[in-house]
């Protein structure tokens, strides 16, 4: 019989792992602690090396929605008017691994709720659901500094994942994470070197590498997906080849898929907008996962269900 050689790569590097959420024994209140990362191979190639942890799905919850896509609004119903109900539906009905809370209400150019109010929402959420939390501000640089600080202080030892630190303003976010043992998302714009740069800044500032999750900016299907797909593959390859500054888990926000016209508008002469839309975000998530994502932030429960199925069939975390 012909013997086909098994072409195993000998990677010298390995992705570090990051723990999210703390159980009562560790001083937190989460029912489970989750671990991401730890790969010694390109995604799902178990014959080459281990992939000990399953990629996770974080259900998106926004504390105040404006401009929310109609299709997802129908999936979620009245839950989108209350972040706690929304989070509970994600966990109980849609089996999200964790929740990603975006505190959009704090944006000073919009509702401008105070940092304390936002932190109170986080507190309520921690009481209502027992999965680990990712918490983002509104994306407003100055305000986010205050919001993340309040959130960090109000939920010490919960091991949140705080979003995010970018090159122009990383110190306050990093300090908020460090002061209470939270993890931090390091964000950069679709570039291998920039991704590395912000991680260097964070570690020089004192953040431990096992507290960093990298967001390389996932572009959606039809909106530059191939760019982020290749940037992520290159980040992961560099990490496996030994670049220690890139040996961190990756997080991708696939909700950008809902910016695509094909996911929100009818196409004359073609049916099935809802089904197409759900596939739009699922496809974005699938491509992100196959290029190295460890956590996906997802908006549509239908899309999340498809991606979960793909993770199962890929033997996620086997």
């Amino acid at each position: 019989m012909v013997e086909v050689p098994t072409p195993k790569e000998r990677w010298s590097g390995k992705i570090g792992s990051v723990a999210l959420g703390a159980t009562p024994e560790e001083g937190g209140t989460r029912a489970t602690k989750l671990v991401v990362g730890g790969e010694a191979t390109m995604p799902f190639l178990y014959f080459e090396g281990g992939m000990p942890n399953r990629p996770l799905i974080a259900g998106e919850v926004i504390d105040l929605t404006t401009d929310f896509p109609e299709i997802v609004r129908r999936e979620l119903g009245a839950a989108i008017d209350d972040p706690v109900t929304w989070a509970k539906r994600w966990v109980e009905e849609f089996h999200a691994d964790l929740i990603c809370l975006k505190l959009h209400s704090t944006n000073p150019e919009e509702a401008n709720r105070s940092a304390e109010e936002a932190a109170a929402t986080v507190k309520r959420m921690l009481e209502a659901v027992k999965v680990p939390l990712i918490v983002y501000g509104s994306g407003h640089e100055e305000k986010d500094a205050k919001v993340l600080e309040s959130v960090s202080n109000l939920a010490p030892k919960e091991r949140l994942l705080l979003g995010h630190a970018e090159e122009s303003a990383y110190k306050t976010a990093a300090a908020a994470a460090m002061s209470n043992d939270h993890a931090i998302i390091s964000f950069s714009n679709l570039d291998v070197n920039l991704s590395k740069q912000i991680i260097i800044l964070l570690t020089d500032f004192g953040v431990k590498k096992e507290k960093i999750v990298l967001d390389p900016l996932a572009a959606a299907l039809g909106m530059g997906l191939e760019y982020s797909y290749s940037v992520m593959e290159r980040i992961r390859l560099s990490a496996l080849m030994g670049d220690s500054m890139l040996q961190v888990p990756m997080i991708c926000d696939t909700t950008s898929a809902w910016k695509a016209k094909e996911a929100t508008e009818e196409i004359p002469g073609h049916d099935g907008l809802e089904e197409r839309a759900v596939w739009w975000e699922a496809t974005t998530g699938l491509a992100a996962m196959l290029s190295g994502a460890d956590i996906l932030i997802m908006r549509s429960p239908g899309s999340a269900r498809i991606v979960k199925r793909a993770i199962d069939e890929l033997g996620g975390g086997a």
Partner: protein
Amino acid sequence: MPTAIEIFKLLPKKNCGKCNFPTCLAFAMQLANSKAKLEDCPYVSEEAKSTLAASAAPPIRLVKLGVGAGVIEMGDETELYRHEKKFFHPTAYAVEIPDSLPEGELEARVRGIMGMRFERVGQVLRFDAIAISNPSKDPGRFAQAAEDVANLTELPLVLKSRDAEATKAAVARLGARRPLIYGADASNLPAMCTIAKGASCPLVVSEPTGLNQLADLVSKARSAGVEDLVLELGPKDLREQLERSTIVRKVSVKKTFRGLGYPILVDAGKGEGGVLKGMLATLKYGSLVVFEDISEAQALPLFVLRQNIFTDPQVPIQVKPGIYPVNGAGEDAPILFTTNFSLTYFTVLADIEKSKVPAWLLVVDTEGLSVMTAFSAGKLTPESVVKGLESSGAKDKSKCGQLVIPGMVSRMSGKLQEATGMKVLVGPKESSGLPKFLKGL
């Protein structure tokens, strides 16, 4: 390709210079870089010729399906990752038609598949082939259905049957179309090879047990004289599909193992699981996917995924320069300009759409560079914006005289105002600020 030293070992080492290079080693180095031809050496042995010809063959054979304009090229790939160079031949998609369908329904189904067409950024997205399957188990019916389908479409055809008699009957009717015979397995290999060889058709070899067993069948098919082969790896789930496809691609392009150097076919089946298999095949090394069934709503994301992944990473993806109306823009709507780098364009377009404010979007030709890069490289200048305004006839479409400049390049607004005679408004630095900006105009 072998290295210069490997080639040198096969040369006569006479250093005669008749190849126009001073030494055999110099000649070997030119050969390794494809800058000389082996025939230029008058003393080269037959053994060296055949050895070098074999190692110079592409690691994955180019296999063609069909004839004429719609011919599908599969294989001839050289990379594991698209950023290393590019993926050359986009994954082709076929949909099955069972031969058990009544004639009227068969026609409707063929038309249905061909009607799933979309236009997107200047490309037509559609299915590439039609497969005829053989649930009737009746050779006559299979051949008839194949002929009926062939009469309805110019698309390349796949004959999906394990029955040699049925396949033979169908190939006899449409052999000139060069259908893909799908195909051979351990139970019918000699008979299928005879048919494929006789009609010069490509042949699929299936073997779910494992890659060693598959390589055995491949070597038997080659001994039987069939070279245009396609592999079906028979994975039981996505994990096995990814592993086996990766191993086949890797041993072929990285290890110069030639026993599996053929394109891969994925039999996706139907439903959600089928779409996932098709998408995985698109991302990871599949050349042809056969769907038992797929909806239009699933087809478009699949098509766009293929369009994205098979974009040449060395060429920035560009949008056609010109002026585009957004949100029903009329004469009194302002003009915003951006570059023709497609990522920039899509982001800006989505943000203008989000604002629901009518506006014109002028796409300036910056050779596919983003705003800041184009500005630094001197491709986004008052002159190039003026050129864009003129060649697109923008001023005939928008008469309000307002031009919105990306906030990042606000420093050229003065010169731009002079050059255009328009009122230049400085927009937000980030595209995400556009909805707010436009609502406040």
